[in-house]
């Protein structure tokens, strides 16, 4: 079958897989789809699902780069499908694949349970010595205090940083850029008093010291969180062992 590619049509090559087992290796299926103005990769996936392959599985929700659901590999690069314009991608074919370093559930859907469990491990919530006061009075903070961690609150838990990190792919116990960034975000929050509880899990070879400053997490992050910066700042905080702990 000959395919006529025009400037109004391109091929979407999708890595499809039923499950993450060796006897079901992934196969690549190509779908010709029409390009419309302002079309994103997510729009292309939705068009293919509606017109060509109803069984195609992928995650999405907000369609505006804020929920972090649609992270996939687009032409080998971990990106958000809803924020990647078709016209910004070169070549006649666009290849989409599931994120690496995550087990594949089906097609482009990956298992995030390990990712979430690492996040939970760092206790990603404010810890107060007196829990009763939470909700009973305001915890005041200056603008300068807020700016120390505000950048790292932009994380949407899309998982692109963990997908890009070379250590996450090797060390399954490594907490990963996302969890470590959130650990730092809380460590320097003036309202938090849980540093002594968090520090033990961070001060290990699978914690902040597992980071080798490859920087690909920051290169992949779509929200400017800069996880590599957070982890280096976390290392310094962990090294200051004799600083007064909250």
């Amino acid at each position, binding site marked *: 079958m000959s395919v006529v590619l025009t400037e109004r049509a391109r091929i979407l090559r999708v890595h499809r897989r039923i499950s993450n087992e060796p006897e079901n290796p992934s196969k690549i299926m190509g779908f010709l789809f029409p390009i419309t103005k302002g079309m994103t990769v997510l729009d292309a996936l939705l068009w293919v699902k509606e017109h060509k392959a109803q069984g195609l599985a992928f995650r999405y929700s907000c369609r505006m780069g804020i929920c972090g659901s649609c992270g996939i590999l687009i032409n080998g690069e971990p990106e958000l499908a809803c924020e990647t314009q078709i016209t910004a991608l070169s070549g006649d074919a666009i290849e989409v694949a599931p994120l690496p370093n995550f087990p594949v559930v089906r097609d482009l859907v990956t298992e995030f349970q390990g990712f979430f469990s690492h996040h939970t491990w760092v206790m990603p919530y404010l810890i107060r010595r007196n829990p009763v006061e939470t909700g009973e009075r305001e915890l005041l903070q200056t603008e300068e205090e807020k700016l120390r961690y505000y950048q790292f609150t932009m994380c949407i838990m899309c998982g692109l940083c963990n997908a890009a990190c070379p250590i996450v792919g090797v060390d399954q116990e490594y907490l990963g850029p996302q969890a470590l960034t959130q650990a730092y975000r809380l460590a320097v929050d003036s309202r938090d008093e849980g540093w002594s509880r968090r520090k033990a899990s961070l001060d290990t070879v699978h914690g902040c010291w597992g980071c080798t400053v*490859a920087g690909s997490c*920051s290169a992949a992050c779509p929200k400017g969180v800069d996880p590599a*910066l957070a982890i280096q700042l976390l290392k310094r905080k962990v090294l200051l062992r004799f600083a007064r702990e909250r």
Partner: protein
Amino acid sequence: MIERVGNLARSVFRRPLNLEKLAFGIQRLSGVGILLYLMMHVFVTGTVTGGREVWEGMMRLLADPMADVGKLMLFIGATFHGVNGMRVLLLELTPLAGRPVRPDYPYRVQSLGTGQRLILYLAMIMAGLSAIAGIFILWGV
């Protein structure tokens, strides 16, 4: 374990293909190489305690041209490892990595900023220079 090492190798060449990640890969490789050399070096220098004949016998063994190629690779690897290691040290311990700012679009990734990139280029240049110096020293070209 072998699968994980393969994963690591693939990860280094997977996108995003930033220079810093490639530097990490070379840092690992050169580090293991230098450690193996160190172990061999400690063993070889230990033969001096066996007396003149033992020492000169070991030197004759190491007069193989392949040993000179190994030494050249050591010069290059050790130079890159040292200078890139300084870059990593500075990123970990000093404000070279940047400081938290309000993230306004277009986002500027501070940890991959110009300062540390220049040090990385310096590491590559110095590795090249040590290759040239090594060729002069080893083969007198």
